[in-house]
């Protein structure tokens, strides 16, 4: 019992500490990346390459005056940022960061919440992510925030459909919902060099999933919820200092968890990157560590991709967004599902 408790606490520390710890780094990469793409310098004054800029930002967030406008519904107004952050953290409990490994006589599963419904859990908790935004927009008692949150919410519901339909096709293909098993099946290779990643089995599904996670995490080109030109700042307009920072962190956490899910499903997950195998052959005990590093590296690339797309593609109009979601992606997803199901059926 005590050993189990320590195990859960340690896992929680790793699975929580790493994403929360890298958020400042991601913010920095995003700002420097933006500057790089726009041919600017970006924040480079605080520390080497401006690496301490996020630290300065955090200090600013903590010490700024916290303004609670008089016209808000106070209990819900205060609850909303907390709820947003908690709902963004919850899905991390279902993300496996390495293979189950033996520690002494005990088999240790890397995810905090171990059940054979791993992906469903991640999905269920991600679906709750929109509540924080919805409550924030409504409790702020402001037309702009309400519009922003309603936009965000409608967008998340619409794109969740294509996300889940892609996932169903994957379940049929892999024949399991267990993330460990899905990752294990991606460990082989075609023709000796091309890994059997999900992206090669399901190119259409991969594309749909990619578009849907951009929409789910409310990032450009889908950040209609914030739409500065028409809604000032959207749902977090009335929030200041640390309360705003919580929304900000939740957005990045969403990005990380959806990227991790994307990598696990389509890009071989925690399977070792080329080169790591040599080290693991020498020291077999280091396998979990290097698997974690492989996943970390792939997720980092995904985050860079988020930044890259953010500064390359302009924002959609809202009707374009809805048309894309319901009239293009969803039928494409259903067609993809049908083809996959028929393929699995004929293959036997």
């Amino acid at each position, binding site marked *: 019992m005590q050993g189990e408790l320590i195990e859960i606490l340690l896992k929680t520390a790793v699975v929580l500490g790493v994403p929360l710890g890298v958020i400042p780094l991601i913010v920095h990469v995003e700002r420097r990346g933006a500057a790089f793409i726009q041919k600017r310098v970006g924040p480079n004054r605080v520390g080497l390459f401006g690496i301490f800029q996020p630290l300065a930002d955090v200090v600013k967030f903590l010490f700024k005056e916290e303004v609670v406008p008089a016209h808000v519904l106070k209990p*819900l107004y205060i609850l909303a940022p907390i709820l947003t952050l908690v709902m963004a953290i919850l899905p991390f409990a279902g993300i496996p960061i390495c293979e189950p490994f033996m520690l002494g006589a005990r088999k240790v599963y890397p995810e905090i919440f171990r*059940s*054979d*419904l791993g992906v*469903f*859990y991640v*999905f*269920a*908790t991600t*679906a*709750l992510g*929109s*509540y924080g935004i*919805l*409550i924030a927009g*409504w409790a702020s008692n402001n037309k702009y925030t*309400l519009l922003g*949150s*309603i936009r965000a*919410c*409608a967008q998340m*519901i619409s794109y*969740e459909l294509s996300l889940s339909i892609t996932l169903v096709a994957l379940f049929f293909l892999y024949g399991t*919902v267990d993330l460990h098993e899905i990752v294990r099946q991606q460990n082989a290779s075609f023709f000796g060099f091309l890994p059997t990643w999900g992206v090669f089995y399901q190119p259409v599904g991969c594309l749909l999933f990619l578009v849907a996670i951009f929409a789910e995490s409310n990032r450009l080109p889908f950040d209609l919820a914030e739409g500065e030109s028409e809604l000032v700042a959207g749902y977090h307009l009335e929030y200041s200092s640390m309360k705003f920072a919580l929304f900000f962190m939740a957005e990045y956490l969403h990005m990380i968890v959806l990227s991790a899910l994307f990598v696990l499903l389509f890009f071989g997950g925690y399977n070792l990157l080329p080169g790591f195998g040599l080290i693991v052959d020498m020291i077999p005990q280091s396998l979990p560590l290097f698997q974690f590093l492989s996943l970390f590296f792939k997720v980092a690339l995904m985050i860079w991709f988020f930044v890259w797309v953010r500064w390359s593609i302009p924002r959609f109009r809202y009707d374009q967004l809805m048309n894309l979601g319901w009239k293009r992606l969803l039928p494409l997803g259903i067609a993809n599902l049908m083809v996959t199901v028929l393929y699995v059926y004929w293959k036997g």
Partner: protein
Amino acid sequence: MGLNEYIDIFLAVFTGFFSLIVVFGRNPVVCALSLLMSFIGFAGIFFQLGSVFLTTIQVLVYAGAIAILFIFVLMLINTSHYKYSQTKKSINPVLGTIFTFILLGGFTLVINNNIDYLNVDRLPTTSMKVLFVDLFNKYLLPFELATVLILVAIVASVVISNKRGEK
């Protein structure tokens, strides 16, 4: 009492409290949010009963999809038109209370008489495979009937919304 009993009691109180707010709350949006909380409470109760699958589906479908649509619609319509008034004297609350207790009594009778059947051990195991093999063999007819019901509901909703559009 162990930790599990405390969690059970907490979940029961939590769910009951928020269910009461759903009925008696003044602000429709707060009522809808309480509905969400009670759904989550139910999910917790399912988890305590040992069915992870039901928990996940409860959160995914009820909390993730149904409650959000309620809240969404309530935010869009102007709720100030539908103010809850207590000034009108009416027999409805009294009748409602009486019928609630009659219904509660009926439920208690049914549950008490079938307590062996409703035992937690009879719940399907958490393994999805076992659950769905049962669903598609033993309970195939009820399952198919439920899908027909859903189909009818979908067609009905399309027909109703079409009529609105023509006017």
